[in-house]
């Protein structure tokens, strides 16, 4: 049964890829159907799970022994507990919706069949990731989603930028994967196994040093997958992929895998405070980092990407807080899944209507033209900035509270950071909102060619006479998913909050405990709302009151840095790329000249020696006689010498 969850979409992928052209017409429906089927299966399992009592809800199913080598026993086995279940529903649910959406979005793409195959492949991998019952199998899913995201980011391969972005994403992730691998090595050497149950139960017995090492390696993995500092650089570029992909993989599900990993191996982190501290720091830094980047981007998707980064920062931070935070991390993860997916779909819908224009400075006043999009997007917006009553409000508020709950100066700092983050979030989201749906309709004027933005879509300039786009609402098939998600982003939070239902649900897995916050919950809430208001207000003053310039103003140093992802890519480029290029170049030289040179040199030297010895053979019989005579003399001398000594 659990196996089916993974199997169904995998089957879909296989069929679509091998099926060939004859599936071009029907393929996408098949894929969507299968996604829905897996969702149904998930729902059924959920129902049956609710039937059990809290402690015995986890289900296991072992398919077969995968890699058995003397003491190294990896099984192809699944574990479905409350945590996994949460993810399964999120993945399949959002996944299905986005399949649906893509049917419309990708309608005219010649390679649609392959696109849906990849989507199914992603679902399978992601489900495997959350259903695995040991770290090695999780690793498979982990790289599986990496592959899917690689294929989908680079889906429009004819665009060099897309291909590059895909490669970059995979490589950066690979770094994280290496971390996960090493973590598994450590577990194996420490516990002799890497199945969840034994490792986590035995975690207490291992030395703190070991646990810290493992924890840091796991964190590295999480950073890679969840685009946390210092491995965040790939997420922005990943927006090269089709928008549904950004929504599903780079907002709702895959990028949250890191949070899952940390929560899942909570037992290990609980035993390693140092590791936890690092986790928290990473979370906090990313939270601000992403938010700042989000403020500066004019590309709507990149702005949202920055926001994703920062929201995941929240989750990581929460997860780093340990038992007091795990549940909230997951909760925020789910709600974020809803509203961020919604936002991306909205963005996609906007682009759809604006013939793939992504520069927000070329939007404006779209609310009249695409009302549904406007409403759904708006609800998502309110949710993410944490408008009281919407899901974002609850989940984020919980995290801020928990941050204070950490206690001590740490608590204060974290609390402050999270609040600041909340404010900035409100700011940049309002900015997006205003620039897109309000203000004058900037898209009516022809664009002024902008050297400032190198990666702007060339489509606009290349056309000689500028024909303004005709913004229109997207077809039903696209709007319905957006609406559904909007509902989610509105009510999910309240649902979970109600009577700590969500926390209670997860407790058996993440053993929840209350933080002892120095400030009361109400105070925190109030502070949050204040931050929210400040953020919105600032944005309104800047983008609501005065018109938005069609060309990005030069902006402050920080702005410019933020536009370039706070120079992270420049750093990578200088240190890694060019450094690496030089290294390889010089190594190639060394290999040809030195290593191989030594070989050829030996050969050559023998040749030279031969040439020289050859000259002795000068053709004169008498000189031959000389050598014989000399030889005889030496022979005699040597013999006598031998006797002498």
């Amino acid at each position: 049964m659990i196996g089916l969850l993974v199997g169904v979409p995998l089957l879909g992928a296989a069929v679509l890829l091998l099926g060939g052209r004859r599936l071009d017409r029907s393929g996408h429906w098949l894929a969507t159907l299968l996604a829905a089927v897996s969702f149904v299966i998930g729902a059924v399992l959920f129902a049956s799970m609710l039937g059990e009592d809290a402690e015995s809800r986890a289900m296991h199913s072992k398919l077969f022994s995968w890699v058995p080598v003397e003491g190294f026993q990896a099984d192809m086995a699944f574990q479905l507990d409350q945590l996994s279940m949460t993810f399964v529903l999120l993945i399949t649910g959002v996944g299905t919706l986005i399949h649906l959406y893509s049917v419309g979005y990708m309608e005219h793409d010649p390679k649609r069949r392959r696109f849906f195959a990849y989507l199914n492949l992603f679902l399978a991998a992601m489900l495997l990731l959350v259903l695995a019952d040991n770290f090695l199998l999780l690793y498979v899913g982990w790289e599986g989603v990496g592959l899917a995201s690689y294929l989908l980011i680079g889906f429009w391969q004819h665009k060099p930028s897309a291909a590059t972005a895909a490669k970059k994403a995979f490589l950066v992730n690979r770094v994280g994967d290496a971390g996960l691998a090493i973590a598994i090595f450590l577990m194996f050497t420490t516990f002799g196994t890497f199945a969840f149950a034994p490792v986590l139960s035995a975690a207490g017995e291992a030395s703190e040093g070991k646990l810290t090492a493992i924890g840091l390696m796991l964190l590295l993995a999480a950073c890679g997958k969840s685009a946390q500092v210092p491995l965040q650089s790939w997420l922005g570029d990943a927006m090269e992929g089709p928008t549904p992909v950004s929504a599903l993989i780079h907002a709702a599900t895959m990028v949250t895998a890191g949070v899952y990993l940390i929560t899942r191996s909570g037992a290990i982190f609980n035993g390693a405070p140092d590791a936890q501290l690092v986790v928290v720091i990473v979370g906090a830094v990313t939270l601000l980092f992403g938010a700042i980047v989000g403020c500066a981007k004019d590309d709507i998707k990149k702005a949202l990407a920055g926001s994703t980064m920062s929201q995941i920062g929240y989750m990581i931070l929460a997860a780093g807080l340990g038992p007091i935070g795990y549940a909230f991390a997951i909760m925020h993860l789910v709600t974020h899944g809803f509203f961020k997916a919604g936002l991306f779909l909205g963005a996609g819908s906007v682009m759809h209507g604006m013939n793939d224009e992504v520069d927000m400075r070329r939007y404006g006043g779209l609310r009249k033209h695409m009302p549904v999009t406007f409403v759904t997007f708006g609800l998502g917006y309110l949710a993410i900035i944490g408008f009281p009553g919407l899901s974002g409000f609850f989940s984020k508020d919980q995290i801020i509270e928990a941050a204070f709950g950490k206690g001590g100066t740490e608590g204060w700092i974290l609390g402050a950071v999270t609040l600041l983050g909340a404010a900035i979030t409100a700011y940049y989201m309002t900015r997006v909102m205003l620039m897109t749906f309000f203000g004058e309709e900037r898209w009516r004027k022809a664009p002024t060619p902008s050297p400032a933005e190198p990666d702007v879509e060339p489509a606009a300039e290349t056309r000689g006479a500028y024909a303004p786009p005709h913004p229109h609402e997207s077809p039903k098939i696209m709007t319905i998913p957006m609406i559904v998600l909007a509902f989610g982003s509105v009510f999910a939070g309240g649902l979970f909050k109600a009577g700590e239902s969500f926390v209670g649900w997860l407790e058996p897995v993440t053993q929840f405990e209350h933080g002892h916050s120095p400030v009361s919950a109400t105070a925190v809430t109030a502070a949050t709302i204040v931050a929210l208001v400040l953020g919105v207000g600032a944005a309104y003053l800047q983008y609501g009151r005065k018109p938005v310039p069609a060309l990005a103003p030069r902006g402050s140093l920080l702005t410019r840095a933020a536009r370039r992802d706070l120079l992270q890519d420049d750093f990578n480029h200088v240190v890694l790329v060019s450094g690496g290029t030089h290294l390889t170049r010089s190594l190639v030289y060394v290999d040809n000249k030195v290593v191989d040179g030594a070989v050829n040199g030996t050969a050559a030297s023998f040749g030279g020696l031969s040439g020289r010895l050859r000259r002795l053979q000068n053709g004169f019989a008498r000189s031959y006689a000389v050598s014989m005579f000399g030889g005889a003399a030496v022979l005699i001398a040597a013999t006598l010498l031998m006797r002498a000594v």
Partner: protein
Amino acid sequence: MSFPLLTVTAALPAVGAVATAAVPAARRTAAKWLALLVSLATLVLAAVVLIRFDPDGARYQLTESHAWISDFGVRYELGVDGIGAALMALTALLIPFVIGAGWHDADDADDRADEQANRRWRPTQGFFALILAVEAMVLVSFAATDVFLFYIFFEAMLIPMYFLIGGFGDRAHAAGEEEGAKQRSYAAVKFLLYNLAGGLVMLAAVIGLFVVSADSLGQGTFSLPELLKARASGDLTMATSTERWLFLGFFVAFAIKAPLWPLHTWLPNAMGESTAPVAVLITAVVDKVGTFAMLRFCLGLFPEASSWATPVVLGLALVSVLYGALLAVGQRDIKRLVAYASISHFGFIILGVFAMTSQGQGGATLYMVFHGISTAALMLVAGFLISRRGSRLIADYGGVQKVAPVLAGTFLIGGLATLSLPGLAPFVSEFLVLVGTFERYPVAGIIATVGIILAALYVLVLYQRTMTGPIRRPEIEKMPDLKVREVAVVAPLVALLLFLGVFPKPLTEIVNPAVEHTLSDVQKKDPKPQHPVAEHAGSDDKPAGHGGGDHE
């Protein structure tokens, strides 16, 4: 003395080679089919070997033993352990694909030559006959349990390989026909001399082994089981220095074949100049004999020396892993890139062998098999690509994916296998090797792990530069997708990669006991995990863990 299965398995391709060579020049196609059928029949026999092999049975099975050259203490002794059986199967498995892929490689090479020559000079027949000859010799060396017998075929297989490399190159050579021929024969001579030199060093060691065994056993023998028995029982003892010298003699030969840094430089030339199928033959089949022999002979015969040399060997292996990967990144020639990737992979294999843990060695054995399959997939597709465009330079491609999606797809899968993506077979072996290494040498394990990142780099760069992006060249515009024959060659390999990635169990079951035997030869036990751990137990690994953290 039951039915001599191993002998027959090895003899069949040999006979086939002779038969193929005898086919008259006009009947070129007949020769091809003959060769293909023979190789398939061999595959069947190899499968029988695999089935007949009983994992719980004796160490060496299906043994045969006949007196041969009693003066040299040489017997014709065959027998397989799990490792040997697995590699025999790999060899027999790959040859049909090599033949299928090389179907047209040796055609119309003699259109230039005059009618007179046309009758005598039969390149096609020669090509396939040589391939079968190589197969036969490789099979024997995997099955030989007599050191001398092994040595003979270890050396003899160089000759057909030499003619394959030097005699049959890519039709259109980047540097022009004349220059191409020059580089080819350079590569061939380099290959042969390099390996021959190694082999001769080994010859000295083989003689030394005979002398040693003659000294302490009364009369010299080369029979591996006997030697191991004597070694275990202490009848056969060597002075430490002697053992080390002999070990080096053997190891150098194998390290050249494998190839291990810095003895690797022949491989890029050989693989670059030869046609893709031959390149596969080199790296996927012939080179495996080297690593196989390390496992079977170096460790078994010279345990003390092996553990003495381990640090150095591990160091070199690590260098190979990183160095090979980095050079692969720096290559401009597709085949050379794959060659350097192979060097990196052989680094992993040797790492696993000398980690002296059951995970490491088991992984190394699987690695030999899986690397064989994955490289075959990647290289053969690369060969199809090259044969279409007539160039080996990466820069001459780009956007192929648009016109030939199937080609691109299989190429990508081959590449993903090469970077050992989970779910594909190589992942299992690579992970085992890394775990096995990490168990005993954490730092080494972590350094090697960097290799998998670099692997991703060179594979994806290659894919991006060749397959993606806009089409810049007219030749590519009209590039056809894979033909039926080519799909038939690649599809099974891909299927195998997927299947073995998910269900490697059958193989591991066969390999494990053999690995345990090897470990007992070197008197090594897996380090026990510290669970349940005392607080201080883990501390020694702590810096390693952090080192890893810094490293990434």
